[in-house]
């Protein structure tokens, strides 16, 4: 130690003595973090951050918070005691606010195991575009442009007006980007997608590196990226159909025939099992967190079970054991009273003010199953879940082949394009069942999970729905949109858009006297086999109108001097594609 001191004193004195203060003080370059990184390192972060921001994330999940956590409630696939209940999520809602930040500026988050991840979508894509341009890596640039356009389109769909033309330019001195109207942004996104396709198809570029496994969406498959790009355009055009005639543009896309046209061409983000780092589907968090966050919407459940007296009555959906996992069985006695029970299915209602809504049901409630989050296939064993009940490897589905078929069915049904919506709906439903088997395959479960396609009930169900379709001509659009809603379970962003455009599926409404007479909703009367007597009707309420957009991320408004004021009533703030 003394030696070291002498060494340093000599060193310090010598340094100063020689007058080379400058060199002595020139030490402010961080040796532990790089000033430049490869586009290969930025792409997986951008892709996974995007899926995380859109999806369901549970609590204390893999460092991610997603809009799906709010929207799952808004599209009545989930219920919660938190603020999304009764459409009440404010701009400061953790998931909403944090997802906004992740999309634009980045967030620092920690996994359940304490590992720090940095998430960022648009700024990372921006750096990829800049660097790829400089390096001649046009394949990366093409992918980044398509992802960037898709991200902005989803932001417009969710919020209406968002920062665009002045966004992501802090280094150029713009600290307070203005908000642009969605109607101004959308046309530019089509151009951006086309430009991305051009980059991908460019054959003269140097492309010193090409995307491979670092592209965790398509593994570098350029053709699939082109398909995804065109499908995004199809979706955006469909969303604009209420305010403009999109027939020509849609037909052009259909004629070109480069849409997603097979299950494995779907635009999805893969998740993994718990490995050297935690890359599980964030929605799987309820399996390893003792305190659960997400309840399954009894409304969604009752439609799948054929309980709804108005729609699909008596038609039981065979996807139920793939969609939900019941931790309880028919005879399970719960420690606390339940609010909505149907044998082993236990949940709470949207808008509940019932006496049993707040009781803990962590070890008893029904959870998201193998299809939405890579949880457990419900073989009826009724066990409380653990971290190893499932794998958590279910992908996040941005746009699937089934979605393409439903979009086409909708366009046909709406008369935008020619074709038979009935055939298209049937094809879409068939593909939805394929998709379940496809996702289960990606999950790599340790249980033996039967294939649903060809099992029998799948065809029965499809036939039943087709019969229902034929018998109810006035409800055909509702049937298409409801089936799409069921198919897309777990990926809620586009469903929220679809509902606002088409008003379908019909959602749970506590103020509808035919659904909740006297403000009470009746769970299955004999749904609780462990308690004698009928199950009590649950008082429910709804004091807000349906939000036509989400409130802006509160952090953004707090910091941005050019931001508009917060939406006082999101039910009056519509996106440009609504008439």
């Amino acid at each position, binding site marked *: *130690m003394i030696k070291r*001191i002498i060494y*340093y004193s000599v060193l310090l004195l010598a340094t100063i003595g020689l007058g080379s*203060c400058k060199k*002595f*003080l020139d*030490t*402010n370059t*961080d040796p532990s*973090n*790089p*000033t430049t*990184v490869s586009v*290969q*390192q*930025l792409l*997986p*972060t951008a892709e*996974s951050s995007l899926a995380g921001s859109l999806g369901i994330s549970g*609590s*204390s999940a893999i460092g991610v918070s997603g809009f799906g956590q709010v929207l799952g409630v808004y599209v009545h696939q989930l219920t919660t005691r*938190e*603020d999304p209940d009764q459409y009440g999520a404010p701009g*400061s809602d953790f998931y909403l606010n944090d997802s906004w930040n992740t999309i634009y*500026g*980045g*967030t620092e988050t*920690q996994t359940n*195991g*304490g*590992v720090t991840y*940095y998430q960022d979508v648009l*700024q990372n894509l921006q750096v990829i575009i800049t660097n790829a341009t400089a390096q001649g890596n046009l394949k990366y640039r093409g992918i980044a442009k398509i992802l960037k356009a898709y991200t902005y389109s989803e932001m417009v769909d969710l919020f209406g007006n968002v*920062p665009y033309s002045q*966004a992501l*330019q802090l*280094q150029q001195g*713009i*600290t*307070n980007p203005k908000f642009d109207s969605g109607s101004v942004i959308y046309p530019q996104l089509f151009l951006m997608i086309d430009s991305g396709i051009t980059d991908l198809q460019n054959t003269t570029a140097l492309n010193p590196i090409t995307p491979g*496994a670092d592209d*965790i969406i398509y593994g570098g498959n350029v053709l699939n990226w082109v398909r995804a790009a065109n499908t995004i355009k199809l979706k955006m055009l469909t969303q604009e159909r209420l305010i403009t005639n999109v027939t020509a543009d849609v037909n052009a896309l259909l004629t070109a025939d480069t849409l997603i046209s097979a299950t494995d061409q779907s635009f999805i983000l893969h*998740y993994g099992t718990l490995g*050297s*780092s935690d890359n599980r589907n964030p929605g799987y968090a309820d399996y*390893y967190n*003792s305190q659960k966050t997400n309840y399954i919407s009894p409304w969604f459940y009752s439609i799948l079970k054929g309980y709804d007296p108005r729609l699909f009555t008596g038609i039981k959906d065979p996807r139920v054991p793939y969609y939900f996992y019941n931790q309880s069985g028919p005879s399970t006695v*719960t*420690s*606390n009273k339940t609010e909505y029970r149907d044998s082993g299915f236990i949940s709470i209602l949207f808008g509940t*003010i019932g006496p049993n*809504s707040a009781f*803990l049901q962590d*070890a008893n409630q029904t959870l998201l199953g193998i299809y939405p989050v890579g949880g457990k296939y419900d073989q009826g064993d009724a066990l409380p879940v653990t971290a190893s009940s499932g794998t958590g490897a279910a992908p996040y589905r941005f746009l699937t082949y089934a979605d393409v078929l439903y979009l086409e069915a909708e366009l046909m049904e709406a008369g935008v394009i020619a074709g038979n919506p009935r055939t298209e709906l049937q094809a879409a439903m068939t593909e939805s069942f394929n998709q379940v088997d496809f996702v289960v395959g990606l999950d790599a479960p340790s249980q033996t999970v039967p294939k649903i396609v060809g099992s029998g009930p799948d065809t029965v169900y499809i036939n039943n729905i087709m019969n229902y379709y034929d018998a109810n001509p006035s409800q055909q659009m509702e049937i298409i949109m409801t089936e799409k809603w069921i198919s897309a379970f777990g990926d809620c962003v586009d469903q929220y858009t679809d509902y606002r455009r088409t008003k379908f599926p019909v959602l749970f409404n506590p103020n509808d006297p035919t659904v909740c007479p006297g403000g009470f909703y009746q769970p299955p009367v004999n749904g609780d086999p462990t308690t004698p007597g009928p199950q009590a009707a649950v008082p429910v309420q709804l*004091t*807000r109108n349906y939000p036509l957009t989400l409130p802006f*991320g509160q*952090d953004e408004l*707090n910091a941005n001097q050019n*931001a508009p004021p917060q939406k006082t009533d999101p039910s009056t703030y519509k996106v440009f594609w609504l008439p």
Partner: protein
Amino acid sequence: MKKLLTLLGAFLLLSSHSLFAQGIVSGKITDAKDGTPLSGISVKVKGSAIGTSTGGDGTFSLNVTENNVILEISGIGYLAKEVPASVGSDVAVSITKDVKALTEVVVTALGIKRAERGLGYSVSKVDPNILLQKSEPDVLKALEGKVAGVNIQQSQGTPGAATRITIRGDATFFGDAQPLIIVDGVPFSNDQITTTNQVSGGGAYSSGISDLDPNDIATLNILKGSAASALYGSRAANGVIIITTKSGSASRSRKGLEVTYSTSLAFEKVANLPDYQNQFGQGAYDVAGNGSNGSWGANFKNVDSIATYAAYAGYPGIGDSLPYQAYPNNVKDLFRTGHIYENSLNFSGGNEKTSFNSTVSYINHDGYVPNSNYDRANLSFGGYTKLDNGLNIRANFSYSKSNQLGSLFGEAQSNAPSSFARSLLLARSWNLEGLPSQDASGKPLSPLPTQFDNPFWADYHNTSATGETRTIVGIHLDYAIRKWLHADYQIGSNAMSLTRKEVIDIGSLAASGVGNITEENYTSEQIESNFILTFTPNIGNIFSFKLLGGQNVSQVKTTDLVNIGNDFITAGIYSLHNAASVTNNIDQFTLHRLIGLYADATLGFKNFAFIDLTARNDQSSTLSTSKNSYLYYGASGSLVFTDALKIKSDVLDFGKIRAGWAKVGADAQPYLTQNTFLLNPPILGQSSASNNVQSANADIGPEFTRETELGTQLSFFKRRISLDFTWYDKITDLLISPATTPASSGYIALIENLGKISNKGVEIDLGITPIRTKSFEWDIHGTFTHNENVVLSLTNGLTRLPLFGVLGGTNSINPYIEVGKPVGFLYGSKTVRDSLGNVLIDPQTGDMITSHTLGDIGDPNPKYKMGLDNTFVYKGFTLDILIDYTHGGQIYSESITNELGRGVTKDTQDRETSWIINGVYGDPTTEKPILTSGGQEIANTKRLATEDIYFFGGTGNEGTFATNAASEWNVYDATVWHLREVSLGYEIPKRFLGRLPIGSASLSVTGRNLWFFAPGVPKYTNFDPEQNSFGSTSTQGIELSSAPTTKRYGINLKVTF
């Protein structure tokens, strides 16, 4: 001829030697007031050149040539005294403080010793003895209430937990607001190394200063203002604490060997637990239930048994049902009696040219929470020698090794590993001690395993173990080149190394139940070098002048390595090897360098008027290259007006006024001038990185603090009353902080010189001696500290900035910065009110409506703090009683929230009735009152059960008063009285020691924190607002299920040989 004379002289000397007796006179000099041994007191034989000065323990010994001599005893700040002594005698002399002179010497910046009368700024000199043998191993905690102008904040009640100290308020946003602590010339950081975010877990981490051995402290001086500390440059804006250790100040003229041994033993308990209700058990709405968190169940009179909790169903020896009865001590039984055992041995000795001092100490502290302990060993050695060529060399070395073990904490409601998740909230019918705490496979069992880890299990299985070593070495050379020119060179290093292992065991609620280990290895090494030339020309008796010029080089190097292992393969093996996956989370190196040049000129006039001018220029490695050299300066002056005006009065003995103004510059943390990418762990096996969320700024310049202080020091009635008053006004500008940017800019923050903070306040130090007789003295020492902190401005357009993320959502509470508010004010969720202040009630539910807009809900900064120390001395007995009082400040307490929300304390016992929340009906969507057709508001008439008042189980943006309420309702006034310290000491008279080889011996008993009273918190929660969850970090006023404070009883013995 000369030779002859010399011979003659020698002869005379020899003959005197043969004619007169020769021998040794020894003795000990103590302070007349409190009996503390005084060092550095000059002892001379009257009429001769023979003399020495006392050592650290107050003793001296002299070779005298006569049998009977008169000793002249004098020391700075004490009245001179003459006492007779004879050869072979051992005299005990007590001397009295010179009430008139007030010429106390204090250590000022760079270790320069100056007479207090010449200072234009406030310096507090702390007697290190007040820190010793008080059953408190932490130096800072022992200072509480004893020094004006110092704000000390404790954290958790477990051993080794951090202590925060601030002087004259927070003068930074994101940096460390704590003062610069200089130990033997080298900075000593009181930073807390936070391995795991203390919101969601983490231990009760210690802070750096806990490594310091109180037994080795020779002097402790606190420079509060910028004028005093400007010479230190960066960070001195927060004040400076200058500590010299005994080993670092071994001084000349020591003779012989002196050994001091001190030992103490203390027992500790939880200071206070809530008063629990024991009428109602687990359940809800008056119905017993075995799945509830709360004690809102049936009256014990009405129900005898309850179905066995699911986790214990079918467990051997446990039947189908369990008794439904109160277990009044179930919380108390989670804890034990802790103890502190401390031993310290000090050696000092030397001769005229050389001396040494060495201290060896060991302390062992077992907390009241099982498996919590802290132990620390200190070894220090210092030596001094004067070479024949006149060069003085001083060198010191100290080494400390500490180990801290304890369980984990954090916000208790969501999958936390906290051992305190439910500890203070146990349902009144849970017999936790009577039930197994783990199953056959070692996983925790409890009545509600999905809600908390059984504390008996968590204490041992969710743990944080830290080992810390610190080595301080230093060399100080000084040499008088000429009589008027003195050169000093000092270089030292303070090297700290910390290793920490945090474990969450298999089966815990946290870490997915698969087990998790986090290992951190942190090192920091500070090197500080100062070269000083002091020029003191003789300019006659009227004026005095001193000019000092110096150069300072400092370097701070840190390394940090954090690896996280997840999923234990074999149970019970806590190593990264045994984890299924290991991720490197942090691997960071930082280097910070600074070169400063400074000058200080002091001009004195007739020893009653003084002017001091300082200037310093720094060059820092961390700032923009165009702004990294910056100059700052200051001036201060003092006038002893009683001398100047020749006031001779028995009423006013002494009067001094002082004034100072100074500017201090500070630099940034390393690496804020260049953007880097952040490296992520692999994503699906792909190496990944992300754009930084925070943008660097190549244009960062220094921060500046400007401070004005005015003060006076007065003494009345022969120093029966003394008063020291200071007023200051401190403005810190161009604060380097990350400015929040809208995410849409691509970053969430941009480093900028962005804000301005004002701190204004007063410090009063009052001494009164109501009674002073020959055998009895009563002294009162009062301190008063008031600081008002307010943010004056933020960078263009920024309204507020989050300081740290604690809790979001409807229970949102986070420390923020906003113009017009104090730094770190609590910003969180509030209930909606109408224009008259009535709360709005949802007419459907009778609950209050929580606003979507957050607001100011509290200020953690106390309005003022007071300490009142009464000392009674009678013969050998000293009784000391210290009370301190904190007025105002607020605390968000999750402990209180949950104690109320879970219905466990007597506060919630009154349940036989229902309640109406006073308010008017409102619309939860519009957040406006609902009006009648006549435009009138409608008063709420909806009745709620007691349970609903404290526990809101509904949905949406509503709430009542405790659990799930708007956070404003869980913020309480932190006003608190503490009976901080009571000690009774006894100096054992020599005659009792007989022929034992003991120089002196003293015995004392102490009690610490024996009682407290916090009028602002719910009565039966007995919550001590001093608790805090975030240690010495800048997040204050937020408590998340932390360990309560402690009270201690100790016995102490000190002997010198």
